[in-house]
């Protein structure tokens, strides 16, 4: 076949398709890349964010609260209260938190944990 292929000027439709594809890929990238981020642990002390840690590590964190030192442990993608100076230790009894949106609170020492990452299934918690 005697091709008479010849470089022709791209039509407006071609430009649109190419640009649209680029934007679409960029859009997917921001969405998918975001949810692939390691899940995080946000620690609050009083009304302030104390720190946010990646769950993709094993470590323990000691936090000085109003009544003493609370120890938080991160291990194998999960987090928990390990030690607390509060009398009832409800926070420690909550055990490991592993899923996005889970939270544990120690009211006496004003330390709270919340797991972040991906889409939050709700805006606030009724308890």
């Amino acid at each position, binding site marked *: 076949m005697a091709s008479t292929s010849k470089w022709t000027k791209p039509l407006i439709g071609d430009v649109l398709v190419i640009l649209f594809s680029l934007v679409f890929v*960029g859009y997917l990238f921001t969405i998918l890349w975001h949810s692939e981020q390691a899940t995080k642990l946000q620690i609050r002390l009083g009304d302030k964010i104390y720190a946010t840690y990646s769950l993709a590590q094993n470590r323990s964190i000691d936090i000085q609260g109003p009544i003493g030192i609370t120890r938080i442990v991160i291990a194998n993608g999960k987090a928990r209260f390990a030690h607390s100076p509060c009398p009832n230790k409800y926070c420690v009894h909550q055990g490991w938190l592993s899923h996005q949106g889970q939270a544990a609170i120690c009211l006496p020492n004003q330390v709270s944990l919340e797991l972040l990452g991906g889409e939050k299934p709700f805006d606030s918690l009724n308890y």
Partner: protein
Amino acid sequence: MRFLVLIIALMLSSCGKEPLVQTKSYVFGTLVDISIYGEAEDKAHEVTSHLLQDFQRLHHQYHAWQSDSELSKLNQTFAAGKTPVDVSPELLQMLKQAQTLSTQSQGLFNPAIGGLIGTWGFQRDEFTPVAINDAVIQKLVQANPKMSDIVIKNDKVYSTNKAVKLDLGGYAKGYALDMALAELQKQGVKNALVNIGGNIIALGQHGEKPWRVGIQHPRQPKPMATLDLLSGWAIGTSGDYQRYFERDGKRYCHIIDPRDGYPAQGKQAVTVLLPPSLHAGVLSDVASKPIFLTTPDQQANAARAMGVAQFLVVDAEGSVTISKALNAQIHWLAKPAKITVQ
């Protein structure tokens, strides 16, 4: 080409940061979580701090066991005799409303039993096990303090019963929610979600979607369900899992039955959902108590008496009874093994 610009603009806007300002603090001895959507960040922070100051004021003015609060001073005059005293116009309104609600609940919502609540150790910041003194409890029950003992005459207040000791712990957070909603509207805020110790009221919505709230699982560190909280609606839960102590393997929660003076048994949680009204917040706080204190066969009647159509009860075994109206709105995340729709 204009079409292309439009697409890119849409894409970019969807990547932009949501105009949501969320603040968490500690007031009323619990977590306060305020979300404001769609306002300038400065304004959102200003309104939030205004609300928190209001809450702090309520907390101090109506504190049940700090002796210098307005409420404690009123309790002291009640204990001293029948001398009518002046109270703030706000407290006067609160007392009237609490009296009405107490009557409506046939006395099961009874904020006059501060004496019993104190005996059980729930008038402290910490709930350590207390020694259970049956003689003291019996005496307090026999003294029969109730809201109808309080007489309001010419805007002055006295009690015909010295045993009346007000504790607004099951009312004030709801009152604060109603106040917050009015204040948000006054400030021109269109969308907000206010959570005081688990009691939540909604205004507007979260962007394109309604505000969504999670309902805590009473025995696991995760929500058991979610539901959409539409504008003006309020939700509240009474549970045995936040404020309680354990003694000899038995759980004693903060919900005291005024009839026998003992903490309620037989339920893990009662959740109520209230439609918009001037008192949706107060009802979300108050209305769960009478249901919590009622036997399973009377639950629906207790709810009806409080004007509650949407409720959910988790019994001691973890089985759920849910009203038809609420069942239509709830999304289970951890579906209980047994659900009865009533």
